[in-house]
């Protein structure tokens, strides 16, 4: 399940994986990490329940934590990249200690920094994020590299959990066409809050 060499040898395309994960999403709330994961989530369908990050590298999982702690009745999924998650490794300890039952972290892992020229990331150099999350105490940790497994994760993600989940999707390092969401963070915030029926200032 977990490859000895970190560099992705998967045949799974990132767009297909994220589209599958967000199929029939219901009232799922989505936070996407900067770079390709934000494009992947946008390509799967622009929704008011999406919050796209364009910066603040290392923040995605923790934005998800704050949201999950505020909305206990909703399922929250963070979709981010290996490089983005690597910048917030300590956050995995924070999330595991906080132990939200409605938060899933999904790392789209191509082992590379796609935005800066496909240089190898630490996961491309044998660091296994799933093992780190497991060591922190995430309730459900899996690494997958096929679409049928992603489909299974999607079903799991909508079920109740005993604690936070951490899924690594090993994907190909192919360059895909960008699908750019809006960059106005205030617009995204107001749209998201309006979607939840919250006041918008």
């Amino acid at each position, binding site marked *: 399940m977990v490859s000895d060499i970190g560099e992705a040898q998967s045949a799974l395309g990132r767009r297909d994986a994220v589209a599958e994960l967000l199929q029939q999403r219901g009232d799922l709330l989505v936070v996407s990490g900067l770079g390709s994961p934000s494009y992947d989530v946008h390509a799967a369908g622009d929704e008011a329940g999406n919050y796209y990050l364009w910066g603040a590298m290392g923040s995605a999982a923790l*934005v*998800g934590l704050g*949201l999950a702690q505020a909305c206990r009745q909703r399922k929250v999924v963070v979709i981010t990249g290996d490089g983005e998650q690597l910048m917030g490794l300590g956050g995995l*300890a924070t999330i595991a*200690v906080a132990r939200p039952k409605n938060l899933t972290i999904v790392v789209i892992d191509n082992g590379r920094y796609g935005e800066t020229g496909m240089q190898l990331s630490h996961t491309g150099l044998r660091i296994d994020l799933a093992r780190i999350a497991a060591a922190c105490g995430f309730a459900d940790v899996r690494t997958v590299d096929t679409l049928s497994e992603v489909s299974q994760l999607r079903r799991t993600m909508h079920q109740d959990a005993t604690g936070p989940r951490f899924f690594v999707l090993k994907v190909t390092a192919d360059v895909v066409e960008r699908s750019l969401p809006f960059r106005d963070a205030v617009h995204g915030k107001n749209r998201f809050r309006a979607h939840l029926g*919250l006041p918008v200032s």
Partner: protein
Amino acid sequence: MLECHWSVEIYNHLKAAGVRQVAYVPDAGHAQLIELFQADRDIVSTVLTTEEEGIAIAAGAWLGGDRSVLLMQSSGVGNCINMLSLAVIGRFPLLMLVTMRGEWAEFNPWQVPMGLATETCLGAVGVRCMRAEAPEALVETVRSAAKLAYEADQQVAVIIGQRMIGEKKW
């Protein structure tokens, strides 16, 4: 426990202001406030490995409808700078309570550089600093900062002078 009655007043005010989440890195100056929040079952307390995590949590909390407060020491401000982009560019309400080190009867020289840089760094990235040097002024400052944050969508750091915290006893 420190004899800091202002912690109780700040706690009471933040509760009345509707704060639902608090995030912190353990700190002697904030010890009593942290204990008060931890003992409160209506508040979600999140202990952080590093302070910038709290900036992200505050943004997420606001997206989901929760008001939050972030507690840290001045050394932690240096860890937060790029993450503050999120609060500033998204105009996310942000209330940080920062206890100062390195400025008053400090014995540890390693605390001095970041102590000197704290307000400059926060100002440079777009966070408003409001300094208090006495308990009465602090409570009023927190009250004002909370309103600026939660109602005017501002990013505010209340700077708590080291003189008020007192000398660290060894």
